[in-house]
């Protein structure tokens, strides 16, 4: 693997390999010294064109735990607003000879373009409403800690599927691992043609009782003004996951940040079924695993320049 651009391009084997790697990094995370020297002397650039708290911080921390040098470039506006094109920005950053560029962009396909313009490995940290593969991987990792296998599991993704890159990457990942996926939400927020991805569509929660996992999506306030839903009140009355709707054996997930009282009721967020905090924890180890796979994985030729830290697996050797 050279790049991680989307779950769509990942084979099941590659996906499994990252999950296994993440498991071993989880073990490192329980040590007193949580750092390994794997990427010592290598540079990772985080290029974020959208605001992000959890994704950016977990990528920064993941890179630091692997002993890489990290630069994070944040831009409020789009590349066009700034005047410098994405292509020129990438050329500039590539001059630092980064091992990887992690990019978040409001535009679909941005990560794919960057991959064409740089020698570095490119990781898609969210491109428009297209994909958010690292989120999907951390979600799968989290789920596998609770369900041994996703094979045959019944997963419902509930909410604004139309505008959600998380929904798209997650449903692809869940399907790749054998789960049955149902997307559910107001008809205005379910994209036409989504069935072609091999998912069921439901416009109400009547069948939710069959779900093993309920994955709620963030409902953004601006969807109201765009006439997708008449009011958040009506949305909540039809689609909010609350303790009445969530059964005791069902698991609850959410990519965050949560709108308490809109897509989730406060009591389910803090319930034992909720994996929301576990998802954040997984984010760190899964992103370490992704960086490792792309930059030091077994099938990656080691670059000629730069120090090559240890050919044998270095996990567990404190820096």
């Amino acid at each position: 693997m050279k790049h991680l651009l989307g779950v769509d391009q990942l084979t099941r084997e590659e996906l499994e390999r990252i999950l296994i790697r993440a498991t071993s990094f989880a073990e490192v995370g329980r040590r007193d010294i949580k750092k390994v020297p794997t990427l010592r002397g290598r540079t990772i650039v985080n290029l974020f064109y959208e605001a992000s708290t959890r994704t950016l911080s977990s990528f920064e921390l993941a890179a630091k735990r692997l002993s890489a040098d990290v630069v994070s470039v944040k831009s409020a506006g789009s590349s066009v607003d700034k005047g410098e094109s994405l292509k020129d920005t990438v050329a500039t950053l590539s001059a630092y000879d980064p091992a990887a560029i992690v990019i978040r962009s409001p535009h679909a396909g941005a990560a794919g373009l960057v991959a064409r313009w740089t020698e570095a490995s490119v990781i898609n940290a969210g491109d428009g409403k297209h994909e958010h593969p690292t989120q999907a991987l951390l979600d799968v990792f989290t789920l596998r800690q609770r369900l041994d296998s996703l094979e045959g599991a019944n997963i419902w993704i509930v909410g604004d599927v139309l505008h959600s890159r998380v929904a798209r990457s997650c449903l692809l990942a869940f399907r790749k691992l054998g789960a049955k996926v149902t997307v559910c939400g107001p008809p205005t927020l379910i994209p036409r043609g989504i069935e072609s991805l091999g998912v069921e569509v439901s416009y109400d929660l009547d069948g939710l009782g069959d779900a093993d996992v309920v994955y709620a999506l963030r409902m953004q306030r601006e969807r109201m003004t765009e006439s997708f839903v008449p009011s958040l009140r009506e949305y909540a009355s039809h689609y909010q996951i609350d303790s009445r709707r969530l059964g005791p054996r069902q698991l609850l997930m959410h990519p965050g940040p949560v709108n308490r009282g809109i897509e989730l009721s406060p009591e389910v967020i803090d319930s034992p079924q909720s994996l929301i905090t576990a998802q954040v924890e997984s984010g760190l180890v899964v992103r370490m695993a992704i960086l490792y796979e792309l930059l030091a994985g077994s099938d990656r030729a080691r670059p000629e320049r730069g120090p090559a830290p240890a050919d044998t697996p270095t996990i567990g050797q404190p820096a």
Partner: protein
Amino acid sequence: MNVSANGASKGAEAPRLISRPGPPANLIVRGARLVDPRTKLDATRDLVVRDGEIAELAEPGGAPEIEGAEVVDGEGLLALPAFIDPHVHLRVPGQEHKEDLETGTRSAAAGGYCAVIAMANTAPPIDSAAVLGSVRDRAEREASIPVGFVANVTRAMGGAELTEMAELREVGAIGFSDDGLPIANARVLRRALQYQRLAGGVIALHEEDPDLSAGGVMHEGDVSAALGMAGVPSVSESTLIARDCSLALYEDAPIHVQHLSARTSVEEIARAKAAGVRVTCEATPHHLTLTEDAVRSLDPRFKMNPPLRAEDDRQALIEGLGDGTIDCVATDHAPHAAEEKEVPFEEAAWGVTGLETAFAALYSELVLPGVLPLELLIERMTCGGEPFGIEPPRLEKGALANITLIDPELSWTVGEEGYESRSYNNCFGGRELTGRVLMTVAAGCVAFRQRSFAMGVAP
């Protein structure tokens, strides 16, 4: 159609087509296969052009000697009436970094075209007699094939106030269009259709309900669902076509519907024609040969408006072209500079170039596999001027020479270089196409000649 050869409906008016005067061709093409469905011609002949006119279609070996004439071995080549494109963007005035009249007409000639109709969504747009006059003056110096210029229907393409349509017609507007934008307000379009009775000239319509298409960047369907990009539903096109056909029927006014992309649109046109609406329409080579699947690559070369739609829509366009519901092929040649396309799909400029690949794309994808006959393709590629009062060229004795010479065997892989156009945002890049234009005679003058061919080197 009651028009003279230059397309003027009244003797006193300015000619509708403008080009740089050139020396009349003297040319003999020996032993080519001449195909012209309009004159029921399909035979091997020696084609003789003298002083820019077709002088003779002689039996092979029967061509007379002409002093100083260029002689071309046409064996194995097709000699066809040259094509007319009712829809190109030559970007003059104001966007000469994308294209200008010289490069644009050279590109058209390289694609086998003998005339093109240029759209008016320029910067500034062609909405006044002064702007129209200036581009026509430039065409007289720079255009290697005849160009007709449409003028805008509304001032500044604002969709609110009509342009001085009658004066624009007097100065030479070949028709009217706000192409690039729909005329969203039905009352404004109705006034234009009424005023057309005074001004004349067909109104060519870009059909897209802006409320339904708002925010969309590609066809709404399976692929947009998979990519998470906002879709342009096919009904944004067909609902506006239905509205405008009703208006055209009510006002008994001629309209030309541009770049059909959807099955529902073809169905609306078929209904309207059956009901007696004076409507013609066009489809592009890219909508006839590509689908939304190409957009999975997220390559901005596949971003155009209307978008590439589903396979079922493409099949409907092919059927419509075959049965005459769709009157003609138009390229919607829309050149853009590299930096306007080297950005994420959603930010990229709309449009693709197409003049230099139109015939080869349709010949390779539709004629060679046996989907459409060659004769039909020739008919549909030559009649694009008819809605604007321009007769299709003919291969017959005494006609002004408008001829394209094509090697139907020559294949090449479309690349990014070697275009006559200033831009290379072509959506067929990387595909192998067959059917290369070697030479084009437009309005009696040699307008294009492939170099290796002119050097006498067999391509």
